[in-house]
Structures are given as C-alpha cells and as structure tokens.
C-alpha cells in the first residue's frame, strides 16, 4: 500500500500529507538543488468573497485536478492551468470559521468538514452534494476544521473547539454513506475507562477536552492510525484537574477497524499552556543506530541496518519525540528549541512539567508562548537526508492565571505579550541533534515539503516569500514573492512530464513549474 502510494505520489497528491506517512516527502527530482533557480510561475488562482482567506488547506491533486477548501467552500481547479472547474458553497449555520485544512478523496467522492459540524460528501466530477452527516454539536461550541483522511473502508474525521469544556473524539465513517462506524473519545467517559485515574473525577474527565484537530497518519501494515490530541480543559486554570489528564496532549495508536487504543504516549502531561500535542505524528521507516547515512544521497537513504517502524513528532511544547510505533515506547526525547517549562523527562520519556511555570497570578515567563515552538503547519521528513524538518520558533510570553476559584471552567487565564524568533529546524531523527537551523526575519509558521531533489520548500513567514532551501545545508536557493505569508503546506506533482510545486499564501494559490 505504501509502495503504491509512493508511486502515485510521483504524479498526484492524493491525501492531506501526500501519502499516509505524514512525511510530506516527494520522490520527484525534476526540480532539484541545481536547477531550482529556474523554477517559474505557471499560474495563480485567487479566491474571493467570504471565507476566502487565508487558504490553510493542503490541496489534493487527483487526475489532473486540484481540490482544496476553506470554511464553507470547496474548489476544483485544473492543475495544469489553474482554471476553475467547480466551486461548492456550503450554506453554513454558525460555528467557527478559523480555518479548514483540506479535503479527503476516495474514488470519485470528496469529503469535507464544515464549520457547523457536518461531514459533506461531494461528487468530484461536478461538486454536487451526495450526502451530509452531522459529526458534532455546534451548540456546544464544537466545530470542524480538519481534513478527513480516507483509508480502506473508513473516512477518519476529527473535531475542533476548545472554547468550553467538552470531550474530544475521533470517528470512522462509512465512505459510502457517512454512517458512524466507531467513535473513540480522547478522555474517559464512563467508569472503568482507561486513563480515569489521571483525573480527579469522572465529571472532570468527561469534560476534559483533547480535540482532534490534525489529520491522522496511518500504517496499513500494522492497520493502526496515529492520532494526536489537543489540550485538556479547562485550558489554563487547572486547579480542578490535578493529574496527567489522559489522553489529552498525546499521541495515540488506534486500530483502524475497531477504534480501540493500542498504546499512547503523552507529549504534554497536565498541559496548562494550550500547547496540545496535535502536530503530525510522522511515520518513518528507517534504521536506528548503525553507521550514519550519507547526508547528500538521493537514493532514498538505504542504510546497512534493517529499517524500523518509527514515529516522530516535533510537538508544540518544544519537545522532539522519536517512538517505536509498534508499541509507543520512546526512543528519544529532547528539545528542538530551548524551552524553560519542564524538569526533564520521566522514565517513559514524557516531559515533567515544572509547577513554577504553570500560569501564575503575577505572571510566569514561559518559553514557548501560546502559539508554541511549532504549530499545526506540517513538518516534513526526508529519507534522503535523514532530517526531520519543522517550522519552529523560540518564543516567550508571560502566562497569567485569571480565575483563581476552586472550580474554573473554559480558559481562566492566558498569556500576554511576547517575542518570537521563527526558524526552520533540521533535526537528525536518530539523535535529535539540530543539523542545521535557518532563522527567518519574518514571523509565522509555514508548512514544509521536502523532495528527493535535495530541496525543502516553505515560506519565510511575514516576509512574504515562498522559498526553496537546500535540504542538506539549509542554504536559501530560490524565492518567489507571494505577497503574504505562506499559509498552507506546499505540494508537488508531475503532469505531462513537468514538475509543479503549488502553495497557498493568503487568498491565492500559486503554481510553479520547471519548464523543459
């Protein structure tokens, strides 16, 4: 399955991360570190009207057509020419319009989530609605913003919203009609549920948050999906939820067909900074240990040591984790930027929060800030360089506790002010060491794409450029001014023998091509 997807990835971009691994690595080499300076504009497509900006969705490219979304909107445009084929508008009824990460496609059906808690299926040929299903309760301040992931026999959908104290969950839906196949709550819902001993009461657990903002990754051989979960509730004021608050801010392996938990790893035990742990769980098949692999190879990095089933996450709290994805055991836990909130790691490799750095009435200076050491924009792993790339920030802010009562709800505090230095960190997945670090003058996070052409594509934040870096050294090689910050994760594909690179910045999709 993975091999088949990799083959497809040369010509298409069929799912949120390109393939199920979350690596956002393309085997294409037509555009490479030697010729990228000639990469030129193919077309741009600007959306207009309500809900048009910014485009956070990663477009899918299937059959020469790009499909992408923003809240209440889905577009199909010609991947060669940028001309619109159809535009679907959902008649929304409330919810949160902060963003939409994209669509899922299975066969000739497209799946998209809406701000008012619907999963909608469209015919990819004409954008006509096939069916709709309610997946959450908009009155309870849930909303939907994530990209559905289509795996064999299931559409995996997550839910969003950390305004009031609700439980997070993830669902598998029937691709044919959207009916519910299974639902897994991220926090205990009834007596006897695992993790309940990490909450003071069932009542607190049942309202304990843990939203499922990020599209999952999937290992077809193990038949496991890898879910990353959001912050606990109440978010900042935490006096009434002592304990680790499982399974919030965690990486969780679930059986794809039964929705049952196989293992978990908590990236931010008892989170009090809205850090989540929803960054992509990137699946890496590579050796661990043994001789260092060549850093400039374009072969896909075949090592002499047997590849292992690994999982890596650069988490919003500033920690980089490498796990054995068969059992969730941590192989490596380290900082990918300096942080000041933890007292090392426990025997499971999970960070130990420093109580002094929980939000305080008179303020605690904490790094990272609320936006985090990274955030939802997609990381990338290149098997060619052996490097895990993350859009990162060294950031500080002061965290205040506002609700000092015994039973806070909702937020009860926040951070103020702040300073941040944004950068790309290139992390050696085996050691966690920073191989290179490239700082930006601008601010903001952007998604990443690495390719076998020894390139790393991303945005330089508010400086408003789409850039290509040398994936081995971080040296800037190419840029195009795209007016505003890159707002999604770039993709690449081949049509008619030409390699395209497509990225969104604000209300515009830009396509670049290497002409013959």
């Amino acid at each position, binding site marked *: 399955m993975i091999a088949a997807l990799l083959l497809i990835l040369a010509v298409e971009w069929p799912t949120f991360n390109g393939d199920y691994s979350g690596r956002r690595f393309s085997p294409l080499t037509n555009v490479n570190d030697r010729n990228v300076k000639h990469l030129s504009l193919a077309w741009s497509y600007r959306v207009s009207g*309500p*809900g*048009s*900006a*910014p485009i956070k969705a990663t477009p899918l490219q299937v059959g020469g057509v790009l499909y992408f979304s923003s*809240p209440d909107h889905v577009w199909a445009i010609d991947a060669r020419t940028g001309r619109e084929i159809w535009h679907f508008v959902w008649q*929304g*009824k*409330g*919810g949160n*319009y*902060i*963003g939409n990460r994209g669509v899922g496609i299975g066969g000739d059906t497209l799946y998209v989530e809406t701000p008012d808690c619907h999963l909608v299926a469209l015919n990819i040929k004409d954008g006509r609605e096939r069916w709709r299903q309610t997946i959450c309760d908009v*009155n*309870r301040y849930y909303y939907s913003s994530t990209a559905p992931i289509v795996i064999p026999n299931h559409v995996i959908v997550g839910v969003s919203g950390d305004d*009031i*104290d609700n439980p997070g969950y993830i669902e598998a839906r029937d691709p044919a009609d959207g009916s519910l196949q299974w639902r897994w709550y991220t926090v205990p819902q009834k007596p006897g549920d695992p993790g309940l001993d990490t909450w003071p009461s069932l009542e607190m657990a049942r309202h304990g948050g843990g939203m499922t903002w990020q599209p999952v990754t999937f290992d077809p051989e193990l038949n496991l999906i890898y879910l990353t979960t959001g912050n606990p509730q*109440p978010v900042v004021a935490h006096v009434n939820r002592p304990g680790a608050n499982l399974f919030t801010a965690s990486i969780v392996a679930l059986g794809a067909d039964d929705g049952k938990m196989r293992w978990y790893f908590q990236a931010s035990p008892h989170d009090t900074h809205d850090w989540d742990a929803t960054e992509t769980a990137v699946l890496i098949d590579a050796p661990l240990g043994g001789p260092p692999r060549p850093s400039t190879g374009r072969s896909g990095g075949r090592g002499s040591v047997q590849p292992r089933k690994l999982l890596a996450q650069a988490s919003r709290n500033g920690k980089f984790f490498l796990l054995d994805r068969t059992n969730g055991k941590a192989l490596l836990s380290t900082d990918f930027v300096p942080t000041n909130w933890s007292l090392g790691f426990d025997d499971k490799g999970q960070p130990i929060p420093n109580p002094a750095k929980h939000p305080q*009435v*008179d*303020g*605690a*200076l904490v*790094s990272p*800030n*609320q*936006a985090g050491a990274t955030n939802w924009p997609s990381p990338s792993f290149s098997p060619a360089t052996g490097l895990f790339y993350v859009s990162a920030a060294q950031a*500080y*802010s*002061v965290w*205040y506790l*506002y*609700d000092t009562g015994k*039973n*806070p*709800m*909702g*937020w*009860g*505090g*926040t*951070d*103020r*002010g*702040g*300073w*941040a230095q*944004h950068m790309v960190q290139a992390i050696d997945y085996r050691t966690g060491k920073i191989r290179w670090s490239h700082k*930006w*003058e*601008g*601010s*903001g996070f952007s998604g990443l794409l690495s390719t076998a052409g020894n390139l790393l594509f991303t945005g*330089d934040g*508010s*400086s408003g450029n789409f850039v290509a870096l040398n994936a081995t050294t971080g040296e*800037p090689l190419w*840029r195009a001014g795209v007016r505003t910050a890159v*707002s999604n994760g770039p993709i690449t594909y081949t049509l008619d023998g030409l390699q395209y690179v497509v990225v969104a910045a*604000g209300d515009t999709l830009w396509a670049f091509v290497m002409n013959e």
Partner: protein
Amino acid sequence: MGAAILFLLGVLAAAQAPAAAPPPAAAQPPATGESGEATTRRVCGTLCHDFEHVITVGRTRPQWEATVENMIGRGAKATSAEVAAIVEFLSTRHTLSPTTIRGGVGPADKPMVDPKAVERAAPLYASDCRACHGPDARGTSDGANLVRSDVVLRDRYGSTLGPYLASAHPRPLPPLTGIQVLLLSHFLRARVNDTLRGSPLFTPGDVLTGDAEAGESYFKGEGGCAACHSPAGDLSAIGRRMDPITIQQRFLFPNNVASRRRSTPAPVVTVKVTTPDGETVSGPLVHLDDFYVSLRDASGAHRTIRRGRGVQVVKSDPYAAHVALLPRITDKTMHDVVAYLASLK
C-alpha cells in the same frame, strides 16, 4: 505613559542608532487614507484567520487592546499607528453593547448577550436559581452546572430554556413570564461567556509581588539596565505613569508594538550593508529576507541590495538588550524588577 516609553526608546536609539537616521516614518510609510476596517481586514484578516473570525465576539476597549497585543505577540505585523486604528475600529464597531444583542443568521448565527438584560436578570437569578446552581451557575451539590447544560447551550433567547423551565425542571417552578425567561437566557449565556477566552472576567490579578530592593540591585548590577535607563531620567515616576502589568510587559517585550502608546514612534531598526566592492550603505531597515535587504540611505532614498556572496548585512536592533534578557531572567527577578520600577513614584 507614552512619554516614558518615548524616553526609553530615545535613550536606546541614541545609544545604538546612527545620528543621521531619518524619522521612523520613513522606514514604514503610514497607511494613509485607509479606513480602520480596511486596516483591520488587512492586518488581522489574512494570515491566521479571516476577518469574520476576528469580529465574532464583541469586546470592551481594554479587552480589544489586550487581544490585539496578544496577536502582535503571536506574530501579527502592524505599526503603532495601525494598531491604534485597529483598536479604535474594533472598540467602536464591535463593542459589547445593547446594540449588538442579536447574532446574525447562517454562518453568523451566534448567541449574543445584552449586558442590560444580564443586569436586570441578576436579582431574579439570585432569588430563584442561585441557591442550587451557585453564584456563577457552575452548579452545587443541589443543582446542575448550567454552564455545561445542553439546555442552556442550545438555547437562543429563551427558545429551549422557556419550555424546559415550564415543564421539565426537576423542581416545579413558579411560572415565569416570557420577558423573565429572555432575561435569564441572557444571564446564563453571560455565565457561559465568562469561561471563554477573552472573557470580561479574565483580568490580571496582583503582579506586584516582588522585592523592590532586589529589583533595584538587579537593575543597577547584573541586569545591565542602568546602561541605558535611569530612575531619575527616562524612568522618572514610571510607577505613577504605568500600572504594574504594563511595566512588566514593556520591560520584557518593548518590541511588541501593541504595548506602546500610539503617540510613541516605532523604534528604528537600522542596518549596515557592505557590498563586495567595499561600498557601505546604512540607515533604517525597510525589509530584510534571505535574498534582499531594503533600507533608506543617508539621503532618504530607498535602496534595495541583493544579498549574495560578499554582501555583509549587520542589523542593529535597539531592543536587543531586552531580547537578551528573556532566556536569562528568572520569574523572581522579573517580579523584583516590576516592584522596583513600580516604586519609582
């Protein structure tokens, strides 16, 4: 307050920026002729969320100021003048007031709260509901948590609350008029909103917990603050001119433009560029990325130089010393410095 930070900036700028630097306005042209709404749309409605998301919830002016400040801390880019225009627009047009009591239809369908209705409902809640549901409606051993009640959350201006109170409430209640139900609906929605981020209840507590003497020693010694600042000069009577939390924010994050007053000009970041043939150009920085550096030269002209082999770019950030504090300073010292500065009356 503005005067203090102006002083502070002036001292820093004088210490690190060339005397020939033109006024900062040259570095970043003011957005002339643009409406407050247009500025807000441009700055707040593109990078992270769209404009409609920004104006979802009405806020008071201090809340909008804090919100905008927060956004700057998270990377929003705006000049002081733009920040002032944004706060003005939002505080005027998207305030909490009785005129915004109803949400819209379709995507804008959000429950709104009329503060006057909440006020009128308070005695009714106190007499009929509070004993069981608690002062903040979060429940007691005798009554449910109403902030988490589906009846309350699904309610729109009494639509579900009215029928529930009339016939489904666990204890029979005396009949309520339609107006009373509407008032209670506003009251309970306000209690839900109390828990949301940006809640009007969420205001800082006492940040004046440090030791002023220890703060003074740090200021004069290890902190190196006295190199640029003086309690008799730029910081004179700062404890009268700024509240403690503002002092705390500004000494840590002076480069957060929202934390400056609108009368204060932006700090001048300067840059010195040396080209391969030895030419040196310096002046206020306009734009810098990996490929180009733009600045105003000594004549005031805009210059853009392509970065590449042999081109040296040296940036001077007047706030560099403040940024350098962040990884070093402890929370105790931070509180001590705030206490010291606040004591300068």
